């Protein structure tokens, strides 16, 4: 389990390209986050939890999906840590573990609809096909 | 074949000479054989019309001559520079080796120069005449009745196959058009050697360097080797040796020479062109260039005047000498 966790942590760090040890715990990401109040774990906690390998609660938390990817935290972080990229990487990790939520090319035509921007489907396809 | 014609060059030189703008012209002059071109100082229009040469054997880089010629000749000197020569020209200016005011630099476009060794290999010895036609070099030899035609591509010198730049980085006037800095495969051979085992590398260089006759041609032609007195000619330097007394000394010569031009070598390729033993000396220089690019960021000597060469510069977080190998091994 421990090894698994370490491997997963490293995978997340690698996939995101973020080095969480650059964080100086100033909290500016959380100060700037527009979705803060809806989160159980806040951006600075995110970074710390990944840094310390405390992934399970994070992956089970709804907070993951509260992040709007507005990138305000990336813009404001004085150390260049880029918390939003970590959030995205953790989301991917969850999706990979879920295994079943895949999208196949066959699913695409059914979803085509004037109200949904085509780009959204393309990116959903990219995200969920593996 | 060169696109720009001899007439354009000669006319330019003659008009500036006759107008008194320049006192002398540094250019390519007729040599003993048709493929033999001699660096020449022309001081009259007649000499120019008579002896000036412009063809696919005009590989010589004249920047170096400016060091001594600007001292000797009163007044301006016109010098013809191919794109690769302009880098050497700038590097010499960076090192204050001649007075820019005393030179009128005319940029000449270059389509790549031919290597006489390649021509000889294809046409045989005893070349009596070479004509430059659209189809290629038409070579007449003493032994064959029929002239042979060799394409320009087949005759192209190695350094021109891997031409790094068709851009003139310095000139007062440009004849024709300047080109661009090119993506070249000039480090491929270096990489090939790096990929060998230490034993193979040793065997390769032993094979190459053992042919050295210490004629010093590489040093004498090199536009980076303009020292007032070379360490190898200086009894107090501890490296003096005009001719090698022990087997080691060549290598000391070649390593030191490459080291002395490291960060200053513009990769003009003159050293390998003139080597009578065909030792690929440019592979030593390119090794340094490649290492510098990899370790300290890309640097092209002579690209601009006044740039700080990598060996007279440093960063606080430069790579450690011991990491040089780890870095390569993990690449």
């Amino acid at each position, binding site marked *: 389990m421990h090894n698994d966790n370490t491997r997963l942590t490293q995978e997340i760090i690698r996939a995101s390209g973020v080095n969480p040890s650059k964080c100086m715990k100033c909290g500016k990401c959380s100060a700037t986050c527009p979705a803060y109040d809806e989160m159980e774990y806040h951006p600075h906690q995110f970074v710390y939890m990944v840094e310390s390998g405390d992934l399970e609660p994070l992956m089970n938390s709804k907070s993951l999906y509260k992040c709007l990817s507005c990138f305000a935290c990336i813009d404001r972080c004085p150390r260049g840590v880029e918390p939003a990229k970590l959030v995205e990487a953790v989301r991917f990790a969850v999706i990979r573990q879920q295994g079943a939520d895949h999208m196949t090319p066959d699913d695409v035509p059914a979803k085509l609809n004037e109200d949904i921007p085509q780009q959204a489907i393309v990116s959903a396809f990219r995200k969920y096909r593996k | 074949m060169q696109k720009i014609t001899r007439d354009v060059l000669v006319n330019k030189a003659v008009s500036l000479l006759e107008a008194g703008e320049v006192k002398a012209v540094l250019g390519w002059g007729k040599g003993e054989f048709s493929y033999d071109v001699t660096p020449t100082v022309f001081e009259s229009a007649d000499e120019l019309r008579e002896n000036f040469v412009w063809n696919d054997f005009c590989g010589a880089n004249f920047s170096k001559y400016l060091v001594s010629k600007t001292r000797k000749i009163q007044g301006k000197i016109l010098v013809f520079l191919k794109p690769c020569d302009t880098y050497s020209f700038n590097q010499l200016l960076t090192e204050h080796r001649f007075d820019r005011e005393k030179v009128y630099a005319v940029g000449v476009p270059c389509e790549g120069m031919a290597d006489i060794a390649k021509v000889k290999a294809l046409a045989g010895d005893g070349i009596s005449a070479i004509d430059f036609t659209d189809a290629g070099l038409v070579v007449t030899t003493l032994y064959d009745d029929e002239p042979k035609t060799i394409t320009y591509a087949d005759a192209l010198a190695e350094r021109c196959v891997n031409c790094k730049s068709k851009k003139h980085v310095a000139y007062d006037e440009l004849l024709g058009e300047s080109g661009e800095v090119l993506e070249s495969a000039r480090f491929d051979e270096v990489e090939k050697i790096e990929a060998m085992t230490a034993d193979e590398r040793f065997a390769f260089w032993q094979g190459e360097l053992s042919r050295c006759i210490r004629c010093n041609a590489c040093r004498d032609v090199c536009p980076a080797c303009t020292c007032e007195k070379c360490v190898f000619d200086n009894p107090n330097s501890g490296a003096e040796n005009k001719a090698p007394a*022990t087997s080691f000394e060549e290598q000391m010569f070649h390593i030191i020479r490459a080291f002395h031009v490291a960060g200053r070598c513009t990769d003009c390729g003159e050293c390998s062109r003139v080597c009578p033993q065909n030792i690929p000396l440019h592979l030593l220089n390119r090794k340094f260039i490649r290492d510098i690019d990899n370790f300290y960021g890309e640097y092209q000597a002579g690209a601009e005047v006044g740039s700080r060469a990598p060996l007279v510069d440093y960063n606080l977080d430069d790579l450690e000498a011991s990491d040089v190998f780890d870095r390569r091994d993990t690449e």
Partner: protein
Amino acid sequence: MQVNEYKPLIVAFCCNWCSYAGADLAGNNRLAYPADVKIIRVPCSCRVNPMFILRAFQRGADGVIICGCHPGDCHYTSGNYYTRRRMALLFSMLDYLGIERERTRLEWVSAAEGAKFAATMNDFVEKVTALGENKRLEDLRCKR
């Protein structure tokens, strides 16, 4: 004493302010290292010309090591930074020529690191001894 036991010849260039003092400290603390190491004092590691290194090899040295102040601690503020670049390039070139890379080394030894000096020399001598005599630098030309 064994007769034909191979003893390498090691030349060590030490900067006056840090590494030479580090070597003295190794002496003060009686930290032994092989007598094959002969130290030449230079004001700063940046005084070491690649020609000196090649000269040592030419005259039969089996290994050459250069020791200087740690980066940031140079008595002359920046000398060792130049050394670092020069040696990185030189060592890389020697390796390119097929010379064993263990024969050259650049180490940072402070005046307080007597133990590091002795350990470095022990290690260096051991590595060079394992390689044996320095033939390649001399042999690069002689075969025809």
